[in-house]
């Protein structure tokens, strides 16, 4: 990692080979894919639901709620890590004490290899939800009222209106939000570095953390770069697919 640019040796595709055959690197890839997939699946519908709940009934506190929701986005991730490490704490944290009130056993959150990744996903959803809600509410304001009038005249129920009018007309905003969620969750680093260091048992080992650790703690710049470039190709693939999907329908 610390070798000057001029002294580096050419090793051909050796780095890529070790990336794809090294078991921990593949784990990082799988963990990241799961993290991204679940983040999108949980965040986007939730954001849409909340945006619709905020937009349609003409309630007065709407602006305030939006500000509160969005504020979680501006707080440094480190601070959020601090909050949630305390929340998740088995003996001193409120989450588990609430669960005990209801007689539910604690899943062990960050110390349980099966629950750790989900705990981080919950963390991510909490942090980013406000940002996407704001985007979707803005998208909702773009839909003209006449369309809803016409649907109502045709006898459509509220639910039918939501599914057949709102969602199709919100397409570009939704695609943007999905794209942003994917890009944002692929990059996840701070909570992994600060809360789990990739553990327990590599269950939260994600790509960005793996790259950083390989480069800075293991000193393997070449291998880290091979991983980074593979990630780049993967993102280009995902981005290209989403772009093609959105263009076909416009």
């Amino acid at each position, binding site marked *: 990692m610390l070798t000057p640019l001029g002294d580096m040796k050419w090793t051909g595709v050796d780095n890529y080979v070790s990336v794809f055959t090294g078991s921990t690197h593949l784990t990082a890839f799988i963990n990241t894919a799961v993290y991204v997939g679940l983040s999108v699946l949980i965040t986007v519908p939730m954001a849409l639901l909340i945006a619709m709940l905020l937009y349609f009934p003409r309630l007065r506190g709407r602006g305030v709620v939006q500000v509160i929701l969005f504020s979680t986005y501006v707080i440094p991730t480190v601070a959020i890590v601090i909050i949630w490490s305390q929340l998740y704490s088995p003996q*001193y944290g409120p989450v588990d004490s609430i669960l005990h009130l209801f007689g539910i056993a604690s899943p062990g959150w960050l110390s349980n290899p099966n629950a750790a990744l989900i705990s981080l996903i919950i963390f991510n959803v909490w942090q980013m939800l406000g940002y996407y809600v704001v985007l979707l509410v803005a998208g909702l304001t773009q839909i003209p009222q006449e369309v809803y009038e016409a649907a109502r005249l045709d006898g459509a129920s509220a639910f039918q209106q939501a599914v057949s009018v709102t969602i199709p007309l919100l397409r570009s905003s939704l695609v943007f939000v999905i794209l942003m969620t994917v890009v944002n969750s692929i990059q996840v680093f701070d909570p992994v570095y600060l809360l789990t260091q990739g553990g327990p048992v590599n269950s939260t080992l994600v790509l960005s953390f793996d790259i950083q650790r390989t480069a800075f703690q293991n000193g393997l710049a070449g291998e880290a770069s091979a991983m980074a470039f593979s990630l780049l190709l993967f993102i280009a693939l995902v981005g290209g697919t989403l772009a093609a999907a959105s263009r076909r329908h416009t």
Partner: protein
Amino acid sequence: MVVAAVPLFPLYWLVISSLKSPQEMGAIPPTWWPTDLTFSAYGRVFEVVPFAQSFLNSALIAGVCSTSVLVTSILAGYVFAKYRFRGRDTIFWLVIGTMFLPPIVTLVPLYKLITSMGLSDSYLGVMLPWLANAFGIFLMRQFIQDIPDELIDAARVDGASEFRILLSIIVPLLKTPIITLLVFAVVYYWNNFLWPLSILQSPDKYPIVLTLSRLLSYSTSVQYQSVVMAGAIIASLPTIVLFLLAQRVFVQGIARSGVK
């Protein structure tokens, strides 16, 4: 209303934890309201790590980089919006493409580049890659495109220099994107963790987020956690205050950037 409770609850916990005494922090199960309120945790924060210096470091980094981004984005946005030249759109889309590049991908090459310039462990080393931002250029170009060409042509006919046009006509019309970009940039640079972590080694140069993580790892005893919470609140104050001040404009600006 229920919806607002979800983000609020953890924040509530943060605040009350920072006000509890160390003894109360160790209570099992945890108390929901401090039984003896104390601000002692806040004082301890400054004893354990160089918090004040760090705060200033963050202010320096965020301030310089945000200003630079504002300037470069307006300049570049103006060129991409109003000038015509070969390859303009190709170059623009290349710039936009970098927006989707996760910082982790460029981390290793950037590190090598900056250290080869001898800028490892320096303020300049941290700030250099951050002096311009693709999102800023994109935002400015979108808003500048909406400015009618006739306005600019009229000024040119009157003999105004390009610079004069920029300052007197374009900039005053850019209030919304300027505030949006400013808030976005300050928040981003204030909160950024990975890059300073990689390039800095001396703790006295650390921005507040790195120092906060040092604060966190100083002790894992539960009695100590109130200090960590207090530190987290102090570190988050600038971004929250800035956001609250600008929120109406900022939220509008972000929303408009997402509606294509």
